[in-house]
């Protein structure tokens, strides 16, 4: 084990790697988002958009330009990441109420054009990131219990989701329809991943 970074006195809920491979972004149970510089071995930014409201998930765009976080009030926060002279700066762009219950996962699509938010309200919502307006494009309805995780296909056209209802679903994002259900589990599904990058 090489490094340890601390969120003092609380629990870390999520961590993602910046596409530049030089920074980490983590979030915690007291509502903080921390940016860690792996070269300087230090925390370079702390963002607290809503104090004491747990943030369960953070997502960074594949081009490194946008950071998104979702919290237990169902609020999404968006920051633009601007490469400054030495350290990048994080400019708050927007925040909006996405769901009436916990956001369990927020995920930007590989092509950065959409944001998926998964929730305890059993839905997944797909938002357009165009012009930072975050307009709601689709609500994916069908899961019967909390949705815990999602994964985009490499072409950003499909989403796989995992739910406490014992099923995973494959959604066609052009129509919002479930095209496959994977339901032979006997317990809640809490994580999913998709490998579709090397189909020859």
């Amino acid at each position, binding site marked *: 084990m090489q490094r340890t970074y601390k969120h003092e006195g609380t629990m870390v809920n999520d*961590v993602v790697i910046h596409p530049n491979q030089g920074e980490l972004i983590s979030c915690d149970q007291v509502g903080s988002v921390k940016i860690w510089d792996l070269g300087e071995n230090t925390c370079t930014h702390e963002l607290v958009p809503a104090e004491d409201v747990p943030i369960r998930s953070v997502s960074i765009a594949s081009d490194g330009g946008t950071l998104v976080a979702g919290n237990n009030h169902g609020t999404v926060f968006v920051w633009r990441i601007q490469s400054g002279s030495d350290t990048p700066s994080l400019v708050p762009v927007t925040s909006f109420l996405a769901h009436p219950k916990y956001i369990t996962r927020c995920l930007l699509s590989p092509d950065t054009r959409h944001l998926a938010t998964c929730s305890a309200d059993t839905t997944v919502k797909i938002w357009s990131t165009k012009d930072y307006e975050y307009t709601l494009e689709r609500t994916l309805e069908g899961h019967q219990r909390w949705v815990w995780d999602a994964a985009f296909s490499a072409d950003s056209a499909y989403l796989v989701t995992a739910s406490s209802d014992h099923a995973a679903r494959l959604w066609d994002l052009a129509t919002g329809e479930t095209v496959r259900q994977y339901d032979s589990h006997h317990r809640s599904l809490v994580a999913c991943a998709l490998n579709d990058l090397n189909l020859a």
Partner: protein
Amino acid sequence: MTLDGHTANVTALQYSAQGKWIVTGSEDGTVKVWDTR
């Protein structure tokens, strides 16, 4: 490979782009970077 060090539930994990290291988050309040080699 077993990565020992966290003292509570691991809540998040991601591989680096080339798979040479992993970052994890935990309810023990830490973010850890691990060498996979």
